[in-house]
């Protein structure tokens, strides 16, 4: 893999404001679904509605309900699970297992949160250009960051 590769995405041209929604591939076992996810630097975890977890064949029956706090302090009931996130462009493919909150409301907009995307990529919002760049961090950058966080 080359160093400092950047995946560049345009904002979704919604009216009146373009939004940072990017296309990703989600995988659970052998089921795949492409989803436009709102890149949300304010969310710790990614969140998908239960309708998407069902489409991916995720069995959430036995998972424990937990609460997450939304904007305004309103608790939301979610179930915590894991799936694979695939970012792909041409020959470049990044795949990572991500923790995901499953919102029991089937119609919420899917969110792409910080963990672990922001540990693997420098995420740059170029609002003036309606563009998001995901710059893959190389090992030495990750090491620098780890050292800094230990200080």
């Amino acid at each position, binding site marked *: 893999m*080359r160093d*400092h*590769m*950047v*995946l*560049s995405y*345009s904002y*979704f*041209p*919604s*009216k*009146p*404001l373009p*939004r940072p*929604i*990017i*296309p*990703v*591939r989600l995988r659970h076992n052998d089921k*795949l*679904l*492409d*989803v*436009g996810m*709102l890149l*949300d630097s*304010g*969310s710790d975890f990614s969140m998908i*509605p239960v*309708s*998407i977890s*069902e*489409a991916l064949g995720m069995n959430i029956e036995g998972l424990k309900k937990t609460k997450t706090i939304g*904007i305004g302090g309103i608790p939301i009931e979610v179930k915590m699970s894991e799936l694979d996130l695939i970012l*792909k*462009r*041409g*020959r*470049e493919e990044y795949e990572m297992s991500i923790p995901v909150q499953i919102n029991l409301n*089937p*119609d*919420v*907009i*899917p*969110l792409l949160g910080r963990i672990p995307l922001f540990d693997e990529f420098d995420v740059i919002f170029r609002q003036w250009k309606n563009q998001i760049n995901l*710059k893959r961090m190389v090992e030495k950058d990750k090491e620098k960051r780890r050292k800094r966080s230990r200080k």
Partner: protein
Amino acid sequence: MAMVEGELTETEKNFGWFTQANIKGCEGQWVAIVDGKMLGPNKKIEPLLKEAKKRYPNKVPLVVKVPTEEPLVA
């Protein structure tokens, strides 16, 4: 720093097509895009995926919830 170039994936082609499409009337609803064609809009995902599977059994659909005009706080 090198920008990623190369052939667009199925996911990106569908999303790229969708960003150019006329989405008026789709706000707040789900749409599915398969092979450059839009299914929906619909208030629920399930019917869209069912139709996508029926019409394009070997393709992976892209689903998007089209944002509304109101300001969004996630």
